[in-house]
């Protein structure tokens, strides 16, 4: 229960552009957001502190944990390692953009059903990462554990549990939900 709900204020009263700040547009979850931000602002901080999109989490701010994973032009990235200003024009998908109204994305459904989470802090990153990973495999990108010749050239790499575990190892979960994360992704994988 949040007994001290604070009215959130985002991108209000941002200072104007200067040598240290630029104005640029990000396409986020289907809508265009114009921002004037400090050049040092990471994509993660732009989402969390300036756009009110706190679904992407800050676990380390150094590219070590994957909690900040979002999709940039369809590819999974650690948003803490990208400068927001450098993403001008990019299409960004965050966890907030996955459900279709009240209808959850199949991965979100599977995570719920499999209880593939506990504290939930790594969860948005896991789900975004899984989404990007499914596309990578569909596009035929091999992983460390892919046996050469498994996939026809350019064809999809079949995803068994070992492939999923390997490909999801950039997303740490200190609650140890891994076995269930793998099950949830298996439920959705082709």
């Amino acid at each position: 229960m949040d007994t001290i709900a604070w009215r959130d204020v985002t991108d209000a009263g941002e200072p104007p552009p200067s040598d240290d700040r630029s104005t640029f547009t990000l396409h986020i979850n289907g809508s265009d957001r114009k921002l004037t931000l400090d050049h040092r602002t990471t994509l993660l901080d732009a989402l969390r502190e300036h756009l009110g999109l706190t679904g992407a989490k800050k676990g380390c701010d150094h590219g070590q944990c994957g909690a900040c994973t979002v999709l940039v032009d369809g590819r999974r990235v650690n948003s803490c390692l990208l400068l927001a200003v450098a993403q001008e024009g990019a299409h960004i998908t965050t966890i907030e953009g996955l459900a279709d109204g009240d209808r959850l994305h199949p991965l979100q459904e599977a995570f719920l059903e499999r209880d593939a989470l506990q504290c939930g802090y790594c969860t948005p990153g896991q789900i975004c990462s899984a989404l990007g990973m499914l596309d990578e495999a569909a596009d035929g990108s091999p992983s460390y554990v892919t046996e050469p010749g498994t996939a026809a050239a350019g064809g999809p790499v079949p995803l068994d549990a070992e492939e999923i575990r390997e490909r999801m190892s950039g997303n740490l979960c200190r609650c140890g939900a891994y076995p269930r994360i793998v099950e949830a992704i298996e439920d959705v994988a082709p």
Partner: protein
Amino acid sequence: MSHAPQPLGEPVVRREGREKVTGTARYAAEHHPAGLLYGRIVPATVASGRITAIRTADALAVPGVHTVLTHENAPRIEEPDDPVLAVLQNTRVPHRGWPVALVVAESLEAARAGAEAVRVEYDSADHDTVLTWDHPGMYTPEKANGGYPAVRERGDAEAALAEAPVTVDATYTLGGLHNHPMEPHASSARWADGHLSVHDSSQGSTTVRDTLGQALGLGDDEVTVVSEHVGGGFGSKGTPRPQVVLAAMAARLTGQPVQVSVPRRYMPALVGHRAPTVQRVRLGADRDGTLRVVSHEIATHTSRIKEFVEQAAVPARIMYASPHSSTVHRVVPLDVPSPSWMRAPGEASGMYALESAMDELACALGIDPVELRLRNEPATEPDSGRPFSSRGLAGCLNEGARRFGWYERDPRPAARQEGRLLLGTGVASATYPVLLSPSAASAHVAPDGLYTVRVNATDIGTGARTVLAQIAAAALGTPQDNVTIEIGSSDLPFGSVAGGSSGTASWGTAVHKAATALVRRLAEGGTVPPEGVTVTADTEEEASQDSPYSRHAFGAHFAEVAVDSLTGEVRVRRMLGVFAAGRILNARTARSQFIGGMVMGLGMALTEGSTMDPVYGDFTERDLASYHVPACADVTDLQAHWIDEDDHHLNPMGSKGIGEIGIVGTAAAIGNAVRHATGARLRSLPLTPDKLLPYL
């Protein structure tokens, strides 16, 4: 929607799961009121000494920096009970990483640049940060963590060891370990109209409220602390941490809301750690495996500002029957960060040593390690002599051995190979005490027959909301959908901390009591008035009663490992845990907790290592790139099962705690499997290739 009351134990889906998978669940650093400022901690860069000067002009000149708090200008606070919270009060530096300033700025970027620009001069003293068995500063404290006596003696352990036909004398060494919950510790604080409101990443916001009130001279009704969603804690958020005091101070000084997050690599110094231990275990037995004596001695460290003694010898007091026993803790204060709770403090490290020693004894005797444990089952608790309320160890060992296919193993070491891989299996026992803390709850019914239950429980990922709603619904005799549950705010009836695997038992007892009182009230007849009927209850009395029973959960871990004979890499192929923890109240969330504990135990065994740098005087592995928590690929076939226990000496739900036992004994089972695979008995963790290679 179901319409019939559901019995306890149903695998109900987490209530807040939808918010978590859609990213709408808000954690402590995710509130953004108008005028929000960001605080960045400046850590001490010496391990011991005094601040002689702090120059803040450069920091204040950074655009966007609002103010810099130091010991010179920070608000004075009443001395807190926990010395780790007395930040910016004086010039003393008790360890590297201690906060010496807080830069407050309009943006995260400015705060960070400002923190870089603060210049601190120190009069540094020689430091001593290395734990050794015979450190001259070592002393025997009165008590260890949890209030356990530091020393317990039964019979004459030394004489029994001298006479025993078979003995094991082994010393095990564990470095420090770090909790590293995925959500770093964070607080957002705001003062308005004389009231302090805080969003804190905490395992118990009642305690945080009380602590802030005491430190800042405020009454209970002048402080509200909310911990609605918490990104894990594993003990490190079980006590208030410096960032909440800093956020409150900065908000008071600036008159604006302030958020302070602890950067990941500052966490090892500021949020507690599992203290390193050197543990000597001596066992003496007859040739048939009957134990005559168990001796477990611990040497550990604490900080200069507070005594915290990892109670690692405590489990040896209840595990196995033996006429003679000696369990002793010793501690040395060093110039190190203050150790504290990390998942199963005491049990996790102590059972690594004891269960490794039991394996060594089994090898020495040529007795199967499961059988050795079964032969030493006590009739009553060895230490207190009290009867066990229930003791499921034998059941867990037998059930686990059956499920795992344990007896198919060839007991000889290094007998199984697959190409360059050496395969082996290992077993270890687990235990965790049943704890209960006082809590209060209220139950309300509205005229439309819908219920609201309030208790300041904290859901750190355990599924507390869900299980408390189940407990309430069962007691009220109503479907769970008719029950709203409110937790996570200090304005609610007080709740104990989410720690010691005691949350569900403690809050649940209060919820059950309030709910059954409401049912009785309603049974008296009459209609429910428009404002509804509310009944409150607290469990001070239940929690203060000493049980005539020894109450513990038990478990057994089985592991199969493959050791690469060329690289020394250990992979866990299979891991199976069986637990006896009373009645399991939600099969879905309980399984997740057991599995989560086992995964952390796997990390303790294989990947998590923290070394104390004697020159620099700090932990070397401070971030997630160097301190390796298990990743997805480390966890293959990992299963948790349980044996239902019908124990009437626990609480109205019949439950024991489940949050910690999963990590207890895991590392020993893996270490014992590595010994079976290779013949090499390593007595320090983690079992990294550099340690194994010399034996391969």
